[in-house]
């Protein structure tokens, strides 16, 4: 993998126009980087600040003190824990099913000699062009009695044709026909070859596919909105949206007092903490994921 920041030919400029250019680049990058991180930074500092300080406009860059009240409250909010538990469960089970369905199929389709390969590929690719859409899928899932169960979230999307095609082209390029033939002549069955050679040789691709699937489960909101009814089964995304989205200014309108402001600020303090707690897993995992995310873009670009 090429380092995308590596750039060999550019040294600091010497002429005046080059120095202006370097400065412009520097200013642009600095501004954009700061603007990109500021929303999350503000959420973090606001969540530990004194609510009235936020309201008085005293919190912009550094927190005013270290107020862990909101986090303590969240710690004792069972909903958050339920959300985390459910999201982890759905992501783990869902991603496992995704890989178990996608990888063997992609491997089989990568064998050029397979009779019917073209037709079977078309069978999958067509679903990228046309589909039944939301309502017929919903009716089907409902008639299979999967509504309000984990299965509604992990089975219907078990195969992403796009991810399978990425995996297929990786298997095509990454597992030479000669290795395959040698292994088969040595008496390995096709299953053995898949588990002992094809999978270990494709770790980079599997990491990317894993990440794509896991992210789509972890961040999924819409499927849960449609299929999950019981509060105890809601994933974190739904819980967060319930805790954050309600914009209630009615309190202020009915009794515009100092007290009402204070109540409102306390509520909004919770919201800052909720959003940060929701983003935390991604922020923590991000340093480990970044490399695979970039690789994923490149894999997708090879055959997108």
């Amino acid at each position, binding site marked *: 993998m090429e380092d*995308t*920041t590596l*750039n060999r*030919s550019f040294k600091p400029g010497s002429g005046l126009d*080059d120095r202006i*250019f*370097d400065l412009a*680049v*520097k200013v642009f*990058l600095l501004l*954009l*980087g700061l603007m990109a*991180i500021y*929303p*999350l930074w*503000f*959420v973090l500092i*606001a969540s530990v600040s004194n609510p009235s300080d*936020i309201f008085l*406009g005293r919190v912009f860059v550094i927190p005013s003190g270290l107020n862990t009240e909101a986090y303590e409250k969240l710690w004792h909010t069972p909903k958050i824990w339920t959300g985390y538990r459910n999201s982890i469960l759905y992501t783990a089970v869902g991603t496992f099913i995704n890989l178990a369905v996608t990888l063997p*199929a992609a491997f*089989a389709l990568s*064998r050029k000699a397979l*009779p019917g390969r073209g037709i*079977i590929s078309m069978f999958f690719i067509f*679903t990228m*062009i*046309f*589909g*039944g*859409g*939301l*309502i*017929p899928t*919903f009716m*089907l899932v409902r008639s299979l009695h999967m509504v309000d169960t984990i299965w509604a979230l992990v*089975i*219907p999307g*078990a195969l992403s044709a796009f991810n399978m095609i990425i995996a297929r082209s990786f298997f095509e390029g990454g597992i030479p026909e000669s290795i395959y033939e040698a292994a088969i002549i040595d008496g390995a069955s*096709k299953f053995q070859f898949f588990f002992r050679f094809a999978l270990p040789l494709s770790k980079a691709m599997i990491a990317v596919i894993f990440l794509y699937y896991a*992210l789509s489960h972890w*961040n999924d*909101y*819409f499927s849960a909105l449609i299929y999950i009814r019981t509060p105890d089964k809601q994933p974190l*995304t739904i819980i967060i*949206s319930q805790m954050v*989205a309600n*914009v209630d200014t009615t309190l202020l309108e009915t009794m515009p007092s100092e007290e009402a402001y204070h109540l409102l600020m306390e509520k*909004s303090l919770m*919201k*800052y903490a*909720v*959003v940060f707690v*929701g*983003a935390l897993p*991604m*922020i923590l995992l991000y340093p480990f994921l970044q490399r695979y995310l*970039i690789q994923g873009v*490149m894999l997708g670009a090879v055959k*997108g």
Partner: protein
Amino acid sequence: MTETTSIPLARKIKIGFLSNWEFYVMLLPAIAVTFVFSYLPMYGLQIAFKTTRLGANYLNGDWIGFDNFIRFFNAGWFGIIMKNTILLSVVSYLITFPFTILLALMIFNSVNKRLAKFTQTFTYLPHLLSSVLVIGILNLFCNGETGLINIMLRLMGQEAISFFGRNDLVLPMYTITNLWQHVGFSAIVYLAALNSIDTSIVESARIDGANKFKVMMKIQIPWILRVIITMLILHMGHILSVSVDKVLLMQTDLNISASEVIATYVYKAGIQGAQYGFASAVGLFNNCINMVMLLLINWLSKRYSETSIF
């Protein structure tokens, strides 16, 4: 030798299938899932042409032809949601797109590698966050009384803005969040293209006295032009796709005439309103346009940029 060639074709095919049976077993789960959850819903689309039946025999409604489609085209919402869908998708893309290219060029041309890394790291991160968090953050910034922007406005003696209560702010909010989420991540493709520039070309241009700005305009941008065109063409296939999660989360009763899009309309009519036939018809209309666009784009890109989607 003569024996193998004399085997009839039908038997040869049979042998081909039998000797590869393991591969078909590997394909089986994928085929089963795709058949049930992609192809059966296509069969289920017939409810778009039928009266709605509730319960297990939902496919048994009476045929009503194109009534549902006609009802949709004649509904007052038709023009509004088509306009909103295209506007949100196209405008947010057209604004994000040049920023993406500019960011890639700036990262690539940065003398300070640590600064480049800093900006890359922070611009990629939002791509991992769910729509719920993105709109949640938007909420915290734009909320009526307690949002940061309104706090600042109040301190400056200005009137607070009701961000989620105004039709004219839906598009800017959607676009800005899109920019935040995707600008860094979309730049990766261009960075990779920039990295493949032959350094000797740049070096000789520098020796000939070209300054860095000229190198960027005359070498780097032309070099990635093909990628730019390919990405533009590919995106045209998604012209009717907006993030349904985001729009749904941004929507309020007050801004609905600017934020109702096809996907949210289908969700409300179908899932919330249980008008299954009608909602399916709207969805089918959307899918047909998407399919035509995708096929058109695929043909175009095969022709002009030597890449194809499929």
